[in-house]
């Protein structure tokens, strides 16, 4: 048998990883027995080459799928590019999408620092949108706009945090895995949204298509640029910097990092481990809730059954694409937002399902998870 003991393989990979710690192999060195691994000893330039190759391969495979579907891949990719970056409208749409995705990515980043998987961003976003709309209905336009927006935002954050508290508390009290429970709760949140939109909060004026009543003007985020680009993107970028600072420079962020790196060490250091884990999930849920609030007050202005569909999952991917780094999440969210917006182009020019862009996102992520980064344990 050709089996290599796992322990040895793992050692190998430790040594080869990372642009920072690996010295470039001098030319002419005799190749070790496993030539594939030796090629992975990379310097900074080789790292860039690997990223480019991995992303290029993802694009190629995607093009092959499009061709297999009978579409002209070059034409389809151009249509995607045009609709995301082609003109100021496209760029605006990309920015509009970036706002909830970035907030949703941060909702994964914070719990991940504490070693927790928050896959419930989707449900937390939906609940945030519901909370925001509920608060707006309750205020009923009786309060000045700045106050209204703050209250609506807080309601969204609170609703998202409350939804994330469920998997967090289940984890702490019953040890039920938070990745699984938060994932299942996404479906529950979607059904709560359907219930409100089709029954409880249904706008009598919505005949065939169900939606809730339109938000009053005071509950709308101010427009920043053009007709649609709203100030949510500023809020999201601000949040990214705040989270970056929190995780990097505060004692709380340090404790989260210790907890995520070594729970036993955190416990022995006397940290309140349960409180930290709960706080990390709550902050994550609140961020996702704000994402839902931003989408409903900035774009939709009402609840619709398919609003935010898939955003939570794309945000999860954005967080992994950025290796859970808050500032890099800005770039990764924007990249995935652009691909998502490109889906419209694909739909219009090639008549392909908008969900087909999920293939490209998945391929990019596979390339990055498996090929463009060092092994994680």
């Amino acid at each position, binding site marked *: 048998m050709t089996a290599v003991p796992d322990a040895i393989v793992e050692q190998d990979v430790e040594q080869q990883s990372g642009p920072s710690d690996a010295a470039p192999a001098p030319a002419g060195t005799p190749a070790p027995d496993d030539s594939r691994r030796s090629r992975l000893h990379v310097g900074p330039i080789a790292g860039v080459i690997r990223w480019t190759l991995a992303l290029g391969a993802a694009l190629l495979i995607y093009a092959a799928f499009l061709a297999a579907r009978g579409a002209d891949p070059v034409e389809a990719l151009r249509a995607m590019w045009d609709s995301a970056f082609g003109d100021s409208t496209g760029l605006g749409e990309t920015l509009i999408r970036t706002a909830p995705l970035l907030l949703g990515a941060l909702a994964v980043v914070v719990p991940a620092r504490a070693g927790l*998987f928050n896959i419930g961003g989707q449900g937390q976003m939906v609940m945030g949108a519901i909370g925001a709309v509920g608060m707006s209905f309750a205020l009923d336009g009786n309060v000045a706009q700045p106050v209204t927006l703050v209250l609506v935002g807080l309601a969204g954050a609170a609703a998202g945090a409350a939804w994330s508290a469920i998997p967090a508390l289940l984890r702490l009290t019953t040890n039920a895995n938070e990745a699984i429970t938060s994932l299942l709760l996404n479906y529950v949140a979607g059904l709560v949204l359907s219930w409100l939109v089709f029954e409880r909060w249904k706008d009598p004026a919505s005949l065939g298509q169900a939606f809730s009543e339109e938000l009053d003007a005071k509950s709308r985020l101010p427009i920043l640029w053009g007709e649609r680009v709203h100030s949510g993107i500023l809020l999201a970028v601000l949040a990214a910097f705040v989270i970056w600072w929190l995780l990097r420079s505060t004692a709380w962020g340090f404790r989260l990092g210790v907890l995520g790196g070594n729970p036993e060490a955190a416990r022995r250091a006397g940290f309140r481990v349960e409180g930290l884990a709960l706080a990390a999930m709550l902050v994550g849920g609140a961020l996702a809730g704000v994402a839902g609030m931003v989408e409903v007050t900035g774009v939709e202005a009402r609840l619709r059954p398919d609003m935010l569909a898939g955003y939570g999952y794309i945000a999860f991917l954005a967080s*992994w694409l950025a290796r859970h780094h808050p500032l890099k999440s800005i770039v990764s969210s924007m990249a995935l937002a652009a691909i998502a917006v490109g889906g419209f182009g694909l739909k219009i020019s090639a008549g392909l399902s908008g969900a087909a862009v*999920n293939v490209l996102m998945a391929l990019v992520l596979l390339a990055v998870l498996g090929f463009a980064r060092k*092994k994680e344990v």
Partner: protein
Amino acid sequence: MLEAVLTGAVAGGTSILFPVVGETFTERSGVINLGTEGSMLAGALTAYIVGIESGSVWLGALAGAVAGAALALVHAFMVLTRGANQIATGLVVTFLGIGLTALFGQDYVGQGVNAFAAVPIPVLSDIPFIGPILFNHDPLTYIAIISGPLAWLVLFRTRFGLMVRAAGERPEVLVAYGMSATQIRYLATVLGGSLAGIGGAQLSTAFTLNWSENMTVGRGFVAVSLVIFAAWDPLKAIIGAYLFSGAIALQLQLQARGTDVSQYLLQAVPYLTVIVILAALSRHRAHDAPESLSRVF
């Protein structure tokens, strides 16, 4: 009404039971595959298309198994060969499955299906009450019910099963015998994906009888949760699968009979059931988990 609920539970449980049994193998070997949801979708669409184009439902189910296995192979390669994070990769694989099935399934939305017909078992299906509940179903449902005990036999009474369990509990034992845990994990993951694919095939060609985007609505994720409920035991998996499908069937019957409760809230009950079950059992299950699994999960 009880008869209708139980009949619906058995027919609807098939699409859950296959992936639960499959994921049991995968997790026993030390890999967790959230791509099960994607494998189910791939199986559902592939079986649907091949069933129509070839005219054979069985060929369709087989193709569904291959499609599910192909996605699981992606997961296995990423996780086992490239060392990527299991949870993240699983979700990405599901995302890939959603996208691919949306891309290739578009023209089949609302098309007629080549469906599995019910095969009543002679004599047994005539028994009042029990007959219609258990013995008047599509063939895949019978296979699913048998697959539970069969998987148990394979897992606990065969050499292959022993190797799968060793890969999950003590990979170094396999190494000592000159075998590779990685190879076994590859096999177990691909096997899990193929069973998830068959589950999807049953869903589209024997149960709902249509194809629509994202039609599994979390069944694959539920399957992964039920493996924990079943304590990685294929026999208990049967109970888990029918508990979930029973909740769905009950909810459908309540809807059909008209209740005051919103249908949307009723639809949430099966998911909540699974969450409650997980909460009730998780502490209990902690030491049943395969050793290697608890390291990644």
